[in-house]
């Protein structure tokens, strides 16, 4: 019973965070324009792209006001806004496509990049960090530590561009963009099994680049934790008992050292979702990140709003997933 309680509490906690995200969205997209004395409806209805005359434009604005209640008091708007966000009702963008439809289209590329990189980078961090700790003070440890710091300091967009130019552009091992990978030479769309294999083929470089660029912080954490635990009494005791080093590391060190790393995954997700904007843009991988850039370039406010919310939503969801995984790894967490 207590397990359910723990899960319920965590979900509630994360829903509260999500609520604050909605509040921030409301402040950005509704309160700020109101403070700047701009009709909020006008943000959603660009005058330039629609061929309205002035009268029609005013009519359309009033129409929008009526539908979305944009002319009502702030608190009414807030309630409506919260409901709209929680039901993923983002309206239509400047090209008159429903925003949710655009997001659905661009969600999978981002998902396919972010989740595998999260897993690969965690595995890399744990193994490499452990390896480095086990060889503490040796040359390989120093080189590893330097590598970890290096990946953290190197500008991700530049690495992505260089990798893209070399492997996709010059060597042609990978496609130049996701959309070109999903088309035949004649320019027709690919369907069926080949669609998925080509999708995966195009996502190899983004996944690897993002993993490489985001594992450093956790690997360093893993190394430092492991070094500390390797010095502890129970490891010494295990050594005295004559256990093999491999067994000590697997049984005694790994599990203890990995806990803070798992906690850190949640924080790194926010970092990863920033990085994915660069990665998608550099590899022409049309996901939510590159859509955000396009939306910002064309000042497409509804699209920007929906996209930003969904990206934040993804971050909160990964935080929640980490909360739920944590008790499986650390049995000491009590369900209370």
């Amino acid at each position: 019973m207590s397990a359910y309680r723990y899960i319920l509490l965590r979900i509630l906690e994360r829903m509260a965070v999500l609520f604050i995200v909605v509040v921030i969205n409301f402040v950005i997209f509704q309160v700020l324009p109101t403070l700047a004395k701009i009709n909020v409806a006008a943000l959603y209805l660009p005058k330039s792209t629609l061929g309205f005359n002035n009268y029609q434009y005013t009519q359309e604005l009033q129409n929008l006001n009526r539908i979305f209640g944009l002319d009502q008091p702030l608190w009414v708007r807030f309630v409506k806004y919260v409901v709209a966000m929680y039901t993923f009702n983002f309206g239509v963008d400047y090209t008159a496509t429903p925003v949710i439809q655009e997001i659905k289209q661009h969600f999978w590329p981002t998902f396919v990049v972010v989740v595998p990189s999260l897993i690969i980078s965690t595995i890399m961090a744990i193994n490499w960090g452990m390896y480095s700790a086990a060889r503490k003070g040796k040359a390989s440890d120093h080189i590893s530590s330097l590598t970890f710091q290096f990946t953290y300091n190197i500008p991700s967009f530049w690495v992505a561009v260089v990798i893209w130019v070399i492997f996709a552009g010059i060597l042609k091992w990978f496609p130049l963009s996701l959309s070109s990978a999903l088309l035949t030479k004649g320019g027709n769309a690919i369907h069926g099994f080949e669609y998925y294999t080509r999708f995966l083929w195009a996502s190899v470089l983004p996944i690897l680049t993002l993993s490489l660029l985001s594992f450093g912080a956790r690997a360093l954490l893993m190394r430092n934790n492991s070094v500390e635990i390797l010095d502890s009494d129970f490891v010494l005791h295990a050594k005295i008992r004559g256990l093999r080093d491999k067994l000590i590391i697997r049984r005694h060190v790994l599990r203890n050292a990995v806990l803070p790393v798992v906690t850190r995954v949640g924080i790194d997700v926010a970092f990863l979702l920033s990085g994915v904007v660069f990665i998608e843009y550099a590899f022409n991988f049309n996901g939510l990140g590159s859509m955000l850039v396009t939306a910002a370039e064309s000042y497409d406010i509804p699209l920007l709003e929906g996209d930003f919310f969904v990206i934040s939503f993804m971050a909160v969801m990964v935080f929640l997933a980490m909360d739920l995984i944590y008790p499986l790894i650390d049995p000491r967490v009590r369900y209370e």
Partner: protein
Amino acid sequence: MLLLSVLTKKAALIGLGIIAFFSFLAIAAPVLTPFSNAYSPTAWYASYPYSVPSWATFMPWYSNYSHTVYIPSYQEATFKQISLNSWRPALTSNSVLLSLNESFGPSHIQTQQLALTLINTGPGSLQISSSGNANVTLSHSFYYKGIPQGIYVQLAVFENVPPSSLVEFEAYLVNPLNQSFWLLDAGTSPTSNSSAAFQQLQSGTWTLVSASTLSPSTIPWSYNFPFTKFFLVPKMLTHQAFSKAGVYKIVFIIHITTKQQLKVYVSDLRLVLLGQAYGVLGTDVNGASVWSQFVYGTRTSLLIGLVASILIITIGLFVGLFAGYFGGVIDLSLIAINDILLVIPFLPLLITLGALVYVLHVNLSRTLLIILLITLLSWPGTARVVRSQTLSLKNKSYVKAAQGFGASSIHIILHHILPELSGIIFAQLAIDVPAVIAVESGLDFLGLGITSYPTWGNMIGLASSLFSAQNGFLWWWILPPGVALTVLGIAFYVFGEAVRQGLSIKRA
């Protein structure tokens, strides 16, 4: 004291040296390159587009690339002092007198399609006064190897000649095989000897006449061919003229036909051979110097990094001190803000805010806006560091003692806490500056930051967007800004680490 302990560390010294090097680039930018904004058309065609760095010709696969050459070299474009050494004059008549006029030089000349540096609108010109018919020849010899991609020749003239007199200007290129190529033809009025590319001079004002293979109709030599074959001229002219390595000669001839006394002023004589190798870092798609972009990018990056970091640390220090020392609502809100910012991805939030601020018609320059937005989203992190440090200092026994003696909060903060915080602020500066630089470059890379002048992010963004099979890997354009970002980031990191270690040693 802290600084001293830091300076004794080798890694910190290397870091500091790197930071000093980039600071030098930023400060000395105007000296290091003549182009302050490589994106303005006046800086274009410093060399042929996509030229490699001139030192790259040491590599075997670039060894047959021709160099970009300015004749005479850049400083001597105007007749300021002794340019006659550079331009060997020859006179055919005693009636003509050559002298340097150091105060009267070209002014108000509109730049054309080529780089601004070609035209030196400073004072100084060659004054030619003549009372009879004469030919004045100015020539310059130089060694050249390889085939340039284009040729550019120019001169600036001031003439106020009576209608009965004639002055004509011609420029020839003479190659080692003694073949000559007519490059430029201009004068007060056309004669029977004039070519179809004749350019009329304007009387009573400085006129810049130029001819270039980029527009073959300006070159008299082109008219050996029918007009429909003009697109072949750049290639044919360069291949015929530069078939052999050796000593070339550029000759400017001034024909004067007069019966009265007249004066003509000539300046800014220039021949440019646009090669495939140029400068420290080659050129970009417009033929603008990449080195100038790099140097001014350094300037922008460091400036934005420094200004934003100072803002971040000032706000962070105030809020962090207050929250740490007094606690209460400010403390709780600071923690809450930090927790929320930890969840929301930084870059998407920044992009969203940037786009929205634009839509709201806020009248701010793009650079200032970026600085303010980065500050807005970054100060809570610094504030939190200051807060936790303040909290631990507040519980130290000497602070407790001071409180017990009845010292005011302001006194304790100013005399007991703030001095202890100076080290951590220094360390925080080393974290914030590279972080701000990275974020700003990232925005530029995405095309959402500064667009009107070159920055490191713009360089990477533009170079990568221009990748094609034909262009290949524009390494001289893509690599330097990325390497600089990495090296600078590591230098700041190493320096910050040393400061932090120095702090802990001091405390122990």
